[in-house]
């Protein structure tokens, strides 16, 4: 190495680590600037035990695995570690809604090996014959008993395991409190919509996602998040159409405008709320007291996955509690796995964004399968967007 890196402060090291995790610098840059590359090289030669020992010989499971998942939902370093251990490169496709994932699988030829469906979609995938039952003998890191049941039971349909838990979370809203002019932080969905049409006009974002955007509009009237009742949906549609001229955008990619100040309030998932709150404490994450969505995501393998062995290997790797703990630290979504939680710092396990108070949590509902497939809800959102 020709560059003299000198020493690096703890703070600088952490900054570089975060930059690397967010993917804004390459691994080579990270190892170079922190001196870790040199340190590892020296240590590696001195202590043979530290040399990487692949769990699989390279090429055993093929050279790639294709993962369809959600935005800001993984620790890139874990993928690199997986590639180093197995020789399979992880190719990530990011999606914005379960509808979009379902549409791709229905059309056929998605080419995915692993995907991340949400609890309420799994019965539909099974009914449509789009996913395969999982062979637990190929998932030694899966320990059914260590998962909190309410976040893992949707993975089984009629006693057959189809999906294993990834993370769970809530859907609330994030609000930039510095724009409230001293008014108290809103605590309900009613206030969310009222504020959208008054003080925060032109500054609010809603998801490009029927489940949450319609569900949280239904909450304004105190209806169920999952309602498919015609009259209730008509009320929600009227609210959405009234609010539309006041919206900044209809998009699930809300972090950039929230961070640069273009948007002041947005529907928001746990991890995004946590990520923004860490960097900008004035952005609060709120769960509407009326309720809203509680969800749990899973890993599943679509029928016809082109790299089946790699699919199992990747899921098993990500279920490893140590790997999973790194994931949670990177994305800020809680895990339902007791083994993983045992490895996480206490502050995180007590964090009010990740683990909301019981009364707020109890008001939430899991999405229902009927909500995904209901043609009226699907058309309502499409109509709202094209209005």
């Amino acid at each position, binding site marked *: 190495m020709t560059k003299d890196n000198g020493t690096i402060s703890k703070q600088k090291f952490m900054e570089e680590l975060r930059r690397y995790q967010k993917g804004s610098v390459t691994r080579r840059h990270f190892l170079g600037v922190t001196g870790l590359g040199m340190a590892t090289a020296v240590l590696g030669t001195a202590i043979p035990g530290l040399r990487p020992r692949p769990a699989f010989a390279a090429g055993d499971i093929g050279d790639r695995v294709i993962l369809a998942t959600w935005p800001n939902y993984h620790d890139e370093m874990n993928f690199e570690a997986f590639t180093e251990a197995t020789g399979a490169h992880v190719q990530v496709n990011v999606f914005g809604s379960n509808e979009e994932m*379902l*549409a791709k699988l*229905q059309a056929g030829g998605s080419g995915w090996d692993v995907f991340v469906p949400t609890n309420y979609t799994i019965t539909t995938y099974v009914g449509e014959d789009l996913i395969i039952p999982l062979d637990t003998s190929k998932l030694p890191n899966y320990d059914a008993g260590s998962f909190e049941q309410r976040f893992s039971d949707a993975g089984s349909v009629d006693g057959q395991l189809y999906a294993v838990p990834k993370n769970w979370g809530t859907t609330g809203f994030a609000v930039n409190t510095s724009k409230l002019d001293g008014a108290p932080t809103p605590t309900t969905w009613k206030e969310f919509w009222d504020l959208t049409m008054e003080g925060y006009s032109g500054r609010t974002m809603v998801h490009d996602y*029927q489940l949450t955007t319609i569900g949280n509009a239904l909450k304004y009237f105190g209806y169920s998040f999952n309602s498919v009742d015609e009259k209730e949906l008509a009320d929600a549609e009227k609210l959405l159409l009234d609010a*539309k001229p006041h919206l900044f955008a209809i998009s699930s990619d809300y972090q950039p405008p929230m961070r640069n100040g*273009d948007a002041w309030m947005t529907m928001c998932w746990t991890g995004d709320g946590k990520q923004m709150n860490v960097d900008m404490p004035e952005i609060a994450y709120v769960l509407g007291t009326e309720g809203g969505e509680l969800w749990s995501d899973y890993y599943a393998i679509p029928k016809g996955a082109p790299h089946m062995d790699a699919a199992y290997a990747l899921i098993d790797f990500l279920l490893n509690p140590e790997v999973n703990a790194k994931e949670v630290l990177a994305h800020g979504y809680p895990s339902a796995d007791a083994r993983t939680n045992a490895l996480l710092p206490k502050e995180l396990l007590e964090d009010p964004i990740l683990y909301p108070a019981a009364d707020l949590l109890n008001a939430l509902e899991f999405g229902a399968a009927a909500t995904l497939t209901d043609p009226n809800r*699907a058309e309502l*959102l*499409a109509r709202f967007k*094209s209005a």
Partner: protein
Amino acid sequence: MTERGRKALLLAPAGIWLLVMLALPLLVVFVFSFGERGAAGGYVPAFTLEQYANLPARWTAFKNTLILAPLGTIAALVIAYPLAYFLAVRCSPKWRTSLLILVIVPFWTSILIRSYAWIFILGGRGLPALLESIGIDDIRLINTPFAVLVGIVYGYLPLMVFPIFVSLDKLDKRLLEASADLGSTPWRTFRQVTLPLSVPGIATGCMLVFILLMGEFLIPAILGGGKVFFVGNALVDLFLQSRNWAYGSAVAMTLVVVMLVTVSIYMKFISRLGGQREDVSLM
């Protein structure tokens, strides 16, 4: 080989291409447009006109497309013409090639990334912040029809510049001298000689841009924030989100018809405009 056989052989690749890539898919869309949505989405065969009866629900998307596509085409033309004129007529040949390359360079980067850049330019910390510093407050640019229009002009400008450049470049400079010799002012020469002779280029450029704009979905999605909806966006939604293939097919068929009608009106208009001369061709 007979003359006929040779002709057939030469036409075969294009013919097969058109059949497999255009005629068959269009037929599928046509058939689907009379079907119904499956229980979990998708398509079930049926014969119903329900999807077409439902078209008014997408009226705004058609309206936005039919306003912004022509507006974007005209805006691109207004900006592209002087540029093409400068490159073809005024610019010294020494610089011409380099300047032409500069017009193409943006094509080396994906339109997605280039449109994303505009999010930052038009976002709160970009142009509006600059305007605020000179006292123009509270300007919102991003996620408005204006932002979409800017994105359109930016993205499609080269497609307009090139055909016009080619037609002006071919222009016989002796005609301009003759016009001047006969006492025309430069403005009159431009109006009566240069402009009519560049009509083929203008027509081609407008046609290219307009047809592509009618199907545009990326720029409105990125710079319109889901608030400026084109038919293209409605289609993406119907196929990828609400999974109503039958209704999506009906909207797509309608778009094809709307496009055919507007383009044929346009062709008629153009051929009347350049009707006196024979060398007007669209491509």
